């Protein structure tokens, strides 16, 4: 993978996300500790770390699926607080892909994709369907449009989930372990879709253990442990020359099988 030419990225100065001293607790458990992170438009960030290190919680705070208790989070200049209007506005522009796809089983693939454009963006049905078909073609499953999620393979379902998020034409995509629930032969098709998305210039934050993907696509790799950002660096430096002991231990565990 490392031999392949790295996808180009155009990073602008425009700040997409800024997290300042963000802290979060689950009851007594301090799950996010003093997180500071700035993401620019066009950046592709991979977050890795051991189970329970707070990676998922961190990106779920970015669209308020989880509430943070201290510090400030700004997404595209809008602060995430208890104001529902702000949250609605942010969710419109931030797409999210989940480990378990979270497709709606009672709706067809096409209906899954058009639901939010029709009800949130108030788009006419025909336009929404056109956009949905465009993105379903892009993830290479336009022929499945009238099937139900239960009739698709895991990899196909995850690609539908990506297309569904793209239908809202988001400015930022969050991926929460998108390949962890997939059979090995399905992982590649999903990663290929994500690489293609990166090549098209999408800003993305991706929680994943696919280190090949990180090397190929990421501008920055963040390693988290026990709720803190332990190390962040460019992928080459991160993988070839990790600084912290915890990073070294983690990398040795996931890379040497």
């Amino acid at each position, binding site marked *: 993978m490392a031999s392949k030419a790295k996808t180009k990225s155009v990073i602008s100065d425009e700040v997409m996300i800024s997290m300042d001293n963000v802290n979060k607790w689950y009851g007594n458990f301090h799950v996010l500790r003093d997180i500071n992170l700035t993401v620019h438009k066009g950046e592709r960030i991979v977050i890795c770390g051991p189970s329970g290190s707070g990676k998922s919680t961190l990106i779920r705070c970015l*669209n308020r*699926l989880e509430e943070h208790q201290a510090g400030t989070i700004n997404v595209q200049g809008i602060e995430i607080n*208890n*104001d*529902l*209007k702000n949250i*609605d506005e942010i*969710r*419109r522009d*931030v*797409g*999210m892909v*989940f480990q*378990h*796809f*979270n*497709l*709606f*089983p*009672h709706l067809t693939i096409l209906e899954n994709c058009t*639901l*939010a454009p029709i*009800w*949130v963006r108030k788009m006419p049905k025909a336009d929404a369907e056109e956009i949905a078909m465009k993105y379903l073609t892009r993830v290479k499953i336009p022929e499945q449009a009238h099937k*139900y999620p*239960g*009739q698709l393979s895991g990899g196909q379902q995850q690609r539908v989930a990506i297309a*569904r*998020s793209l239908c*809202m034409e988001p400015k930022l995509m969050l991926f929460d372990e998108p390949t962890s629930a997939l059979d090995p032969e399905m992982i590649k098709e999903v990663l290929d879709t994500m690489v293609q998305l990166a090549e098209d210039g999408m800003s993305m934050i991706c929680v994943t253990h696919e280190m090949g993907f990180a090397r190929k696509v990421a501008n920055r790799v963040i390693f988290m442990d026990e709720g803190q950002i332990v190390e962040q660096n460019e992928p080459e430096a991160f993988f070839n020359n990790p600084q912290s002991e915890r990073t070294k231990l983690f990398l040795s565990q996931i890379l040497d099988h």
Partner: protein
Amino acid sequence: MAVSKKQKYAFIRSEDAPVLPPPASQAGITGWLWQNIFASMADYSSLGASIISLMVALLSVCILYFGGIQIYGLIDFAIFSAVWSDPQVIKREACWTVDQGGALPSGWHGACWPFVMAKHKFIMYGPYPSEELWRVNLTGLIGLLGLGWVLFERLPYRKQVGAALLTLYPLLAFILLTGGNSGASFGSVSLWLIIGLAIISVGRMGKRGFLGATFTEFSGLIGFAGWVFVIYNAIRGMAAVDFGLEPIDTRDWGGVLITLVVAITGIVASLPLGIILALGRRSEMPVARLLSTIFIEFWRGIPLITVLFMASVMLPLFMPEGVNFDNLLRALIGVMLFSAAYMAEVVRGGLQAIDKGQYEGAQAMGLSYWQTMRLVILPQALTHVIPGIVNTFIGLFKDTTLVSIVGIFDLLGAGQSAISDAAWSTPVQALTMYIYIAVLFFIFCFGMSRYSIYMENKLSKSRSH
């Protein structure tokens, strides 16, 4: 051929194993017999299993035999030995044996259908005036046509017909059945209409954020309450119009008419109320959760008979002088709230079966709470609990018989009062009537049950999880 030690476990398939048809025990008539009748004898080699199989078979034969005798007895009573007509119009004497002074052979035991036929009008409509029965029939016919239209999938405009059935039809039924001209004054109706419109505009203002952040959250609820006011009073206004129909007090209603009015009102109202209560009980807002929980636990904790007694006996005592709610209306409200509490728990069961990921998927795309519920969560949750919902509907339908204890003559009440008619007094009078009532109830309940099975199959086919 000598095989070296290294090659011993190596294996390469040179040709594919053939794909064969299933053995006889898996397919065809033999397979069906094995799987459905002799399944317990699958390992017939074991003595214990074969003894058990034989005993089960013996038991089945016994049950069939004794059950058969019972069923034959019932059929014989209701059909073969029954008296079907009363050509001489001699009423009870048509069903009397020689010993009792009639013409039937001694020891005769059979249904007396002329009695049911003579009481048919009373069982269907109660004391509703005969010359006005067309109003009830018309209401029933329109309802039946509308329901048929909505339930059969191939017809166009099903949604519109359904909406009319839920909005215009109750109004039409009210006017036709009672005669309209409810006596509500023009002034009071228009005052309440204006209040309703005012509440709606408060909701609108709240939505725009003029009233502060706290109000924004409840603006939807305020607007909804306003619409309820407006619609209720629009209906009140319509019902007050004099259409020249003769007013008929609900005391003159009875029989199947009452059963259907109570059951349909209960069924139609309990589902939406139950959904709102179930959502309230799972809400993150403490006040909504507490109120819903108290409501549900209160209504579930008291028997329906108590509810009906309270509604018909206690409630008027608390009312100010002159305010007089209709007895049927009070019973209706009691049944409605009672079944809503049960429905709420059924729906809550369905909501709990929905994966958290479904909420998150919807939220992450920016759907609001109500959109998430309406478009994503409830369609799935309600599908899961169709058996429970229909169970509650059927239970409610049969519970309507309890209204007879507060002096409302439903199907059972009308039947019982018909039994006491001395002109038809025979030893088989009561039994005949009860069989007839049971058949009527069975038709309605079995119909609901079949439709629910049809719905379940249809929904599971389109999804294939």
